């Protein structure tokens, strides 16, 4: 018998170190308890997820509500953007004009806010009114004024001379 065989025989004695009596039954009880707890935990977790999913599904069902919300957002966006596009601010950003319309011209007079800077060139306004090379700004007091196209003034003067 070799030395290794002796060692193996000795070590093999450890196979008798078996679980104590009732170990398997107690172990099974504990395992089943843990298994059930885990299943319950999983089902509770699943139930929570399912409820959340249903909640969001229900929230998404009335599509008209989403459409209405989108419409409101769009309206707010338009309301915020449109005044900006209609403003006639120069570089100082203090001049605002509103067309009053009428007559031979698409825009005959424009009421404006006069810039704080007296040196500001009223001619800049022409950049905002296509077709007019130059506007004459006539202050009306209280920081406002009327912008009149120079061409229009010339025509009025010509008519007056003809008369």
């Amino acid at each position, binding site marked *: 018998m070799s*030395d*290794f065989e*002796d*060692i*193996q*025989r*000795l*070590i*093999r*004695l*450890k*196979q*008798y*170190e*078996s*679980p*104590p009596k009732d*170990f*398997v039954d107690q*172990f*099974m009880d*504990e*395992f*089943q308890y*843990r*298994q059930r707890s*885990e*299943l319950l935990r999983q089902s509770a977790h699943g139930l929570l997820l399912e409820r959340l999913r249903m909640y969001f599904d229900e929230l998404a069902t009335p599509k008209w509500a989403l459409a209405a919300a989108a419409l409101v957002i769009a309206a707010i966006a338009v309301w915020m953007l449109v005044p900006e596009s209609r403003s006639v601010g120069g570089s100082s950003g203090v001049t605002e004009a509103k067309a009053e319309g009428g007559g031979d011209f698409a825009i005959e007079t424009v009421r404006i806010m006069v810039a704080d800077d007296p040196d500001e060139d009223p001619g800049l306004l022409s950049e905002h009114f296509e077709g007019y090379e130059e506007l004459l700004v006539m202050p009306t007091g209280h920081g406002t004024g009327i912008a009149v196209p120079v061409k229009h003034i010339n025509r009025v003067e010509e008519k007056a001379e003809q008369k």
Partner: protein
Amino acid sequence: MNEQALSSNGDSDRDLVERAQGGDTRAFDELVRKYTPKLYGLVYNMTSNREDTADLLQDIFSKAYRSVRRFMGKSSFYTWIYSIAVNMTLNFLKKRGRYGKVSLDDVDTGIQNDPEFIRITTSGTSTLREVNIHELQKRLNEAMMKLSEDHRTVVTLYDIQGLQHSEISRILGVSEGTVRSRLFYAHRQLQNFLEDFIK
């Protein structure tokens, strides 16, 4: 473990596994009941501690239960559950190694009536004849715990659990040559640790 026993085990295991995969918890319970004593021997001989063994076995079977749906049947359930047990036990031993060593006051009785034990203790060395069961088991445990974890694993699977080299190779995911090599070095170390008993 012979091939026929393995094959018949495999058939009944496959049926139980399929039922467990279908959600039959009683089928899985049967697998647990069947493998608890075998895995107890494996884990206990690697940890030398009863409480750790019981806790680890709970974790091993819980993990197996959670993973059983993903078990594809490429290996036998036997190999699969042993792989889980070995890996989890080795991880546990690494953690325990960092936080302190186990005390070796856990010795078992029950071998005194074993014919092999009687034969060894009556015909063995004088040391072996004089030693009592507790002392022998304590020395065996101490010798086992002196081995590296890899060496202890192959000794447990081969010498104590009686698995073949090929089965150990599949469980550990190493070649049979590596298994034989680890066994050789483990036996040589055990020979030194237990020389009093074999001279």
